[in-house]
């Protein structure tokens, strides 16, 4: 538990944790919108497309200042996204193919440039290759300040344009009929998305940055049906994964940051898919099982009622055997009858005979009315 105190006292660890939390919040929040707009994979393409931008920015300026590299990455990432849109609208190439092609072309070009830079005699280039898989330990205060300033601006704009971005994601045509400039808002949201991605590249790496975009939103969606809560939760999950991965990898020297973050956020996604109360698989199963049980209860109830309707009293008792035959699909009636007794809808007359209670009769009547539209 030493690391908890380290988090507040150790300068390096504190810097790393703060930086990763900020990038996690920004990427998670914008990624939530991307998920809803079915643009998660675009995030992957943008992060890969950013690599040549980083290399070119370095080649042009000879500087490794975070702001310089981030601007290079953003320009390249944005161009990649714009090219994908252009190819999709101007040619017959489909979106997924355009995405795949752009991703590999830009990434390949980036790798070529990185190799070229590394062959240079100048020793200043060291460390650029950490953009591939990310290096949390390399974060210094200057980087964190840049991430903070840019991340805060992105989140501020997202909040400011909240209602516009909401309809843009839900029904962009309708937004157009309201008189809002849909294309410009679309470009703005994409730009914020690009920026949220590129500020994380140094820490997480271009290869796995998409996990910071896709996974928090996917996990958050499981827990809530409100957009606001989803985006906040998504940012929080991004922060948790970012801090977890960055701290772990800065304490264990051989642990790469990107993959560690991915593993953590994947665990959160997996847990959410299984255990989220409404959309989770586990609780959905339980609800289906309960609903099935109630259907069997109603079926036996109606059977008892149907049998009794041939006699003068609706509470006329009948043998369990008859009910077994009637409910061939759902199996033996005994277990359901016991349940009916617990619910005080039926009573046991002797070891094999059962009859409806008055409340059982009225429930049976309402079930029949619901199913057939008339009370018999």
């Amino acid at each position, binding site marked *: 538990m030493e690391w908890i105190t380290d988090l507040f006292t150790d300068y390096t660890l504190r810097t790393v944790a703060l930086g990763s939390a900020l990038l996690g919040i920004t990427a998670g929040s914008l990624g939530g919108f991307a998920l*809803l707009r079915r643009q998660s994979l675009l995030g992957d393409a943008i992060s890969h497309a950013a690599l040549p931008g980083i290399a070119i920015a370095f080649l042009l300026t000879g500087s490794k200042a975070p702001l310089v590299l981030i601007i290079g990455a953003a320009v390249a990432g944005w161009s990649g996204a714009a090219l994908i849109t252009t190819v999709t609208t101007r040619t017959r190439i489909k979106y997924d193919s355009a995405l795949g092609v752009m991703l590999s072309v830009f990434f390949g070009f980036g790798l070529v440039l990185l190799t070229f830079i590394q062959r240079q005699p100048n020793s200043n280039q060291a460390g650029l290759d950490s953009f591939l898989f990310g290096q949390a330990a390399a974060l210094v205060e200057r980087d964190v300040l840049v991430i903070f300033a840019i991340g805060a601006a992105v989140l501020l704009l997202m909040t*400011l*344009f*909240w*209602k*516009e971005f*909401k*309809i843009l*994601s*839900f*029904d962009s*045509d*309708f*937004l*157009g*009929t*309201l*008189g*809002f400039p849909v294309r410009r808002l679309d470009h703005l949201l994409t730009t914020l998305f690009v920026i949220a991605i590129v500020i994380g590249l140094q820490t997480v790496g271009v290869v796995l940055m998409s996990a910071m975009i896709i996974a928090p939103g996917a996990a958050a*969606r499981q827990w*809530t*049906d*409100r*957009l606001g809560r*989803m985006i906040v939760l998504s940012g929080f999950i991004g922060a948790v994964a970012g801090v977890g991965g960055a701290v772990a990898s800065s304490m264990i020297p051989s642990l790469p940051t990107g993959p560690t973050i991915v593993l953590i956020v994947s665990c959160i996604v997996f847990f959410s898919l299984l255990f989220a109360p409404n959309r989770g698989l586990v609780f959905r199963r339980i609800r289906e099982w309960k609903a099935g049980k109630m259907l069997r209860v109603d079926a036996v109830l109606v059977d008892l009622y149907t049998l009794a309707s041939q006699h003068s009293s609706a509470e006329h008792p009948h043998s369990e055997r008859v009910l077994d035959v009637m409910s061939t699909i759902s199996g033996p009636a005994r277990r359901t009858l016991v349940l009916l007794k617990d619910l005080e809808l039926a009573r046991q007359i002797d070891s094999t005979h059962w009859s409806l209670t008055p409340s059982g009769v009225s429930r049976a009547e309402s079930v029949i009315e619901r199913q057939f539209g008339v009370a018999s």
Partner: protein
Amino acid sequence: MDYAIDIRDMTVAYREKPVLWDVDLQVPPGVLLAIVGPNGAGKTTLIKASLGLVKAAAGSVLIHGRPYAEQRSTVAYVPQRGSVDWDFPTNVLDVVTMGLYGQLGWFKRPGKAERVAALKSLAQVGMEEFAARQISQLSGGQQQRVFLARALVQDARVYFMDEPFQGVDATTERAIVDLLQGLRKQGKTVAVVHHDLQTVPEYFDHVMLLNVRRIASGPVEEEFTEENLRTTYGGRVAFVSALSAAKK
């Protein structure tokens, strides 16, 4: 005469293929208009191009005598139900409130007045008790009524609706028709993309027959003729004559 909707020379092409060719449409105010035609006739495109959602190669749209761009706030649009993701994380009231975002303008968030207005139009479509319902839990007919409520809250003079009867049950269809006829009684103009030819004479007072070109448009009793239908629907004559038999 001042038309509520006055579309001239509307031409839209996807790549080289024309989807709409030189289409004119004049609709007097206070009219309930059905836009009918076979699949691929360009019905949806006509609406979208008129609202500037699809780029038109040529054409102009006047709403009550002024260009659409100036009249935007007096026009409401009901898109096809299937055009959005109903698993979007929001509830019914929120979707209806979206109809007021244009009046709110930039950056302003909806408040109590907007919620009250949204609830009122939900009541008009009989959905007020669904206000807090997550939209993924709605049936097709309920989704359609939520979209209608979103258009009603805009309090427009002209409505464009794309297949509002698609996939709704008979009761809901009846309710929607009553609503549309109520709008007409208030002097509003409603243009509806419609698929069921059988119900055109019963529900609507004007009709437009469209198949890339405008075949005919005008009062139902004048233009909804077997000959016009035959021209619109081409080879499917048997179906058309069965229909006109049903009409009599």
